[in-house]
């Protein structure tokens, strides 16, 4: 893709603050939304971390005597059970662990890779830039879900493969945004000054450019965690994510499809938790983007 698409990808922000009219009166309400979001996020993360302690049952334990129990009917299964009598609450808690692990690790890997390539691309220009941007173009052109499926056929299904694939899906966006930022940063006075003082390329890249990329990286990272969690659930839904019986939200939603008419809670409960998590992360990402005045997708 070309400069034009890069510039539009960068304008994909939801609400750039207007320089002329500072939105003063809305601050309080916005803060309330952010505080609530942080609280919910903390709660969900804590629940996933403490899944072993909080779960009333093992997530894989089958108990056919209580199969398809509705929520709030049995005290030992507060959110009900699935078709083989596994406890929904325990499965949601453990499934959250998978979603958050994949979201955080894949974002971290993708962020490091994309930032490194983006800085190299924007700083050195020339053939390095051409090659990296070519790889970005190819990556963007590939239909990711199908590619992920093909790769998982070759490498099998495991958490590591899932994280690797999710990381692979994000690096290109980071590389492109970071490259754009570096292109403008490298012409700034402090970089020229550092260069004229004899600083090495590596020193300039890591001591002058990288700190100035903190804002975009923070926003990109936050928004991408939510996107990767959605991606993971989609892959698990198609049956190429986490291997059962390990619970994952996407997998649970998929299993519940066969019982939609008789047991509504199987699909809807994990779906609601998934949506809440992604919504909260999205809200925080939007807020950070507006606060730091960063333009990213």
């Amino acid at each position, binding site marked *: 893709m070309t400069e034009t698409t890069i510039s539009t990808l960068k304008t994909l922000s939801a609400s750039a603050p207007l320089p002329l009219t500072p*939105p003063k009166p809305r601050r309080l309400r916005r803060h309330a939304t952010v505080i609530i979001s942080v609280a919910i996020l903390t709660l969900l993360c804590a629940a996933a971390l403490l899944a072993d302690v909080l779960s009333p049952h093992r997530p894989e334990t089958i108990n056919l005597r209580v199969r398809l129990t509705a929520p709030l009917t049995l005290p030992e299964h507060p959110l009900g059970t699935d078709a083989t009598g596994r406890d929904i609450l325990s499965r949601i808690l453990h499934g959250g662990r998978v979603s958050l692990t994949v979201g955080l690790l894949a974002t971290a890997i993708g962020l490091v890779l994309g930032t490194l390539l983006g800085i190299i691309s924007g700083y050195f220009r020339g053939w390095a830039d051409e090659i990296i941007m070519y790889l970005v173009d190819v990556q963007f*052109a590939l*239909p990711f879900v199908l590619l992920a499926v093909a790769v998982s056929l*070759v490498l099998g299904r495991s958490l590591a493969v899932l994280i690797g694939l999710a990381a692979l899906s994000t690096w290109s966006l980071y590389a492109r945004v970071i490259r754009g930022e570096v292109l403008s940063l490298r012409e700034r006075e402090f970089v020229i000054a550092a260069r004229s003082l004899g600083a090495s390329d590596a020193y300039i890249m890591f001591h002058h450019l990288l700190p100035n990329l903190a804002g975009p990286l923070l926003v990109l990272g936050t928004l991408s965690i939510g996107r990767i969690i959605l991606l993971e659930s989609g892959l698990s839904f198609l049956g190429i994510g986490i291997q059962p019986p390990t619970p994952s939200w996407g997998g649970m939603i998929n299993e519940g499809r066969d019982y939609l008419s008789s047991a*509504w809670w199987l699909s809807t409960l994990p779906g609601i938790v998934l949506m809440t998590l992604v919504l909260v992360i999205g809200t925080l990402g939007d807020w950070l983007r507006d606060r730091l005045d960063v333009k990213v997708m």
Partner: protein
Amino acid sequence: MARFILVRMARTALTLFGVVLLTFCLGRLTGDPIAMMLPQTATMEDYERIRASLGLNEPLPTQFIIYVANALRGDLGRSIVFNRPALDLVAERIPLTLQLGLPVLIVSTAVGIPLGVMTARQRNRPFDQLVMSLTLAGQSLPAFFIGILLILVFGVYLRWLPTFGSDTPAHLVLPTLTLLIYPLAIVVRLTRSSMLEALTTGYVRTAQAKGLSEHVVIYRHALRNALIPVVTVVGLQVATVISGSAIVETVFAWPGIGLLAVQSIGGRDYPVIQTIVLISAAAFCVVNMLVDLLYFVIDPRIQSPASR
């Protein structure tokens, strides 16, 4: 201009070449295609004979050249499961996928852009906040979950609409609605932010100072410039529409390209998967190129990659 178009086309071709190389390598890694085709009673001689007849005993670079040459002639291999040309199989499904995709494309553009303009004009008022919350929720909902909720409400409880298959026009409603939410949310948010930016520019203030009516300022001056990023996203949507949605087509058992892909994966029908990947990538590249060329027509100030 001619140079710009040529360079852009060369880049597109190069990108497609990369895609073909990648899918070819993945195809060779997914396992022995002959072992899957042969009956269990086959002998070693049968194996060698088929290997030679398929050109698989050639060195890999030669195989790749043969593959590309065949692909350029429209021969993308035969489906292992259906024993028919993979391209025919995929081409048959395209109309069904478009049946879902075109309404999505039209509605998300025709509703999304005006809604985006309206929210931008009513910035921070209740209407804007409502639409912004709804679109954020729309972006956070996984498509398969939207689909399941719609099935639950309209199929299971209300029994208004059929939930799977593609027999009647009524079958279109739920999958189209499911597919619509995400692009609609994106178009609204993008148009809004782009409009907000356009409204602060000098030419808009000039237009206002000249005493032009608000309608003319918004639609003639601001919107025209604000639409540029929206064109890109709508372009990307066109590409997505052609490649179909594996997830939504699975949820609604809609026999389009996406469902074919999922089924081919189940049957390890690699030539078909490869064909779908290639067609999707080609659609993406071509649409992107057209969008870039369109920009150049709309706004010649935009730098061409040739002068980069």
